[in-house]
């Protein structure tokens, strides 16, 4: 009888419940950190109850009757912000394509590559707005210097995209050019450039989209454009105009995103959409960055 029960007992034994200790400990630690941070913040938590009502009150002031008379001026300032973003994007792309290519493993020598990558990493780590802000204090607060600041602050990320793209190119074409006696410059021109040009063009447009957001932010600190107008009318507490400006910002940004996104998709996937695997990866990665909207 024992012979009969023994195997059935082991065979039907329910596996041990996985240990809950580690998840519990992690949850407690995370909870403690969050709580400690929340308590330490100088926020009058007791006033929080009246907050939704207050916000609703202001939203009513802003959006119940937006001040449409100011729309022409708002559009004028929007175009100024777009101009800042566009010139900034052109400057950023013109500088970052050669620098980024020199920093790619299959183009630049190591003594050039490492310092360049270090420079990009430093520019990337400091928030763009801070770099732009510091430059603006030195160069003066005008839309033109705003564009320059955007161009310089964007180099870190833009150049990184360039060298990652160049490094992801398949070896075949480069080997062919080298076998035909081409030097590094010729390899770059005839093998790498044709392979990366669509992706780089797409990244350039993407830089424009990012700059549109950042240029609004630069306006807030006084570089001109829609951001400056918004900051001014917020300071005047003219809520109906602020509401109209917010609507203009949202609509203009979404519109520009849609147009630029459509062009980018056409560049990357083409009218006869059939991308090579390497290209498809790029599109995916780019879309991942796309949503992040790091400013």
């Amino acid at each position, binding site marked *: 009888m024992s012979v009969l029960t023994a195997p059935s007992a082991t065979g039907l034994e329910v596996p041990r419940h996985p240990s809950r200790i580690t998840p519990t400990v992690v949850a407690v630690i*995370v909870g403690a*950190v*969050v709580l400690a*941070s*929340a308590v*330490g*913040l*100088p*926020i009058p938590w007791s006033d929080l109850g009246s*907050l939704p009502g207050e*916000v609703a009150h*202001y939203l009513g002031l802003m959006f119940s009757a937006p001040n449409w008379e100011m729309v022409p001026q708002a*559009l*004028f*300032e*929007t*175009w*100024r912000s777009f*101009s*800042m973003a*566009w*010139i900034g994007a*052109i400057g950023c792309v013109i500088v970052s394509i050669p620098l980024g290519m020199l920093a790619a493993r299959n183009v630049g020598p190591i003594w050039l590559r490492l310092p360049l990558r270090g420079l990009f990493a430093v520019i990337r*780590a*400091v*928030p763009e*707005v*801070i770099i732009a*802000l*510091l430059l603006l*204090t*030195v*160069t*003066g607060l*005008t*839309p*033109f*210097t705003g*564009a*320059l600041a955007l161009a310089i602050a964007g180099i870190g990320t833009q150049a990184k995209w360039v060298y990652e793209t160049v490094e992801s190119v398949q070896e075949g074409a480069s080997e062919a050019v080298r076998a035909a006696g081409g030097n590094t410059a010729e390899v770059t021109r005839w093998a790498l450039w044709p392979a990366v040009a669509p992706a780089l063009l797409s990244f350039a447009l993407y830089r424009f989209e990012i700059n549109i957001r950042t240029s*609004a*932010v630069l306006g*807030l*600190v006084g570089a001109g454009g829609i*951001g400056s107008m*918004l900051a001014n009318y*917020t*300071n005047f507490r003219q809520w109906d105009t*602020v509401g109209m400006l*917010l609507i203009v*910002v*949202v609509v203009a*940004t*979404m519109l520009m*995103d849609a147009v630029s996104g459509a062009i980018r998709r056409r560049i990357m996937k083409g009218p006869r959409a059939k991308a090579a695997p390497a290209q498809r990866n790029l599109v995916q990665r780019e879309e991942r960055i796309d*949503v*992040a*909207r*790091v*400013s």
Partner: protein
Amino acid sequence: MTSSLSAARSAEVPPKPRSRVRTALVFLAFAAFTVATCIPAIGGIELDVGALIRNWSNGSGLLVQFLQPDFGFLPRTIGPMLETLQMAVVGAALAAVVSVPLTLWAAAPTNPNAPTRVLVRTIINVVRSVPDLVYATVLVAMVGVGALPGLITLFLFDLGIIVKLVSEAIDATDLPIIEAGRAAGGTQTQINRRGVLPQTWPLFANQWLYTLELNVRISAILGIVGAGGIGRLLDERRAFYAYDDVAVIVLEILVVVVLIEIFSNFLRRRLV
């Protein structure tokens, strides 16, 4: 014979894919847009290099000062930096909690009801299209200077990112467990709770960590418009042209951002 051979060969060569007319048109459009951005009369920017050079001679002293950071200032930056980190953590945590139901609402497999799905997605898209500092500016005017407007800004910003990214990831994943749950007679809520959430939580965890990283970067600048944290100190020292102090703050932000990135990459490898 040679002529027939060359004719055959020329027939083999495929035509050049791009027409010159199209290239010229694209180039013209590009040039026209660029020129239009440089006409001050319609709102474009004035390319005034002369003024730039004049300002540069005034401001270059500041850059020299910037290159000589005054580390005696460091103790005064600790408090604001701590506030920045606290805002980042609390904002990310609040957004993480609220993001779960909203994401399940915004993804097609977990919410078959099209009108509510479109509604949630539209709201999220509108929320995402406002730049972070614009939120902060308006909120500072609404609820006053301090950490609260910064916290709300971070919360809204994170929510937009998490819901957008994770709901699209859920859309793209093949989840046979939904069909299994439906076949077993489960309601959509039960399927989401018992089937979808356990399978998609690495997606969530990944984005939560990512927003924590972003938050540290953003909350460092929120103070510029008065929303608390290290940015307020930075703006104050900048206004006094104390660029040696500004250099310390920027260095500190750089170090903290890099540390948080390393920490979050470590966690991501462990968790996901």
